[in-house]
């Protein structure tokens, strides 16, 4: 599964994207965040306030309880400031 990061989430994690093998039992975006945070300080820093970081599954905004089953690309990023 491909994970991509943007803006200060990308900077805190130190990479723009990565391929991960997600262990069994990781069913939702919230599960994925919990698992990522177990992988190191940079992830804990990026997700230190989980309520702020937004997620998208295959280019669509989703809530933390959204399923990641079958997803090709999951993205994490701060609140948008476009326009």
């Amino acid at each position, binding site marked *: 599964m491909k994970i991509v990061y943007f803006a200060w989430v990308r900077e805190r994690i130190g990479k723009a994207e990565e391929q991960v093998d997600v262990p069994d039992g990781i069913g939702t975006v919230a599960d994925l965040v919990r698992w990522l945070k177990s992988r190191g300080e940079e992830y804990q820093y990026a997700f230190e306030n989980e309520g702020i970081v937004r997620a998208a599954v295959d280019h669509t905004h989703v809530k933390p309880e959204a399923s990641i089953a079958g997803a090709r690309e999951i993205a994490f990023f701060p609140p948008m*400031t476009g326009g």
Partner: protein
Amino acid sequence: MARTIRIQAEPFDAAAETGLLTKGRGDIGAVVAFTGLCRDEDGRLAALELEHYPGMAEAEIGRIAAQAESRWPLLGLTVIHRFGRIAPGEEIVLVLAASAHRQAAFEAASFLMDYLKTRAPFWKREHLKDGTVGAWVEAKEADDRATQRWG
């Protein structure tokens, strides 16, 4: 309905884009054009750097545009959003909404801008005049409130 969505680094030509929407048509009575420009923040700013999520930016703006088309009787819609380094005074975003009557064009353009601010995957960072890289621009609660008024 004519719908154009583009994400690009280059500047855009609002007059040419308007011409593409209206040329040769007798049914359009109103065009509202919104142009968002980079401010210098009282001379503090050297530039804004806009990061975006390629692929999702186009997809999300497409969904926002489809919502606008379902809510208002539009005869044309154009959204162009730039990314990369943008200097004060330069244009960042263009929204054009064309309709038979002004109310639909005004409301659709305003709706699109509120949703672009809060739903389109773009992030702004400040580059300061003193050469340092400033902070990522924080999302504003006022923009969320503005978006919520559309229900």
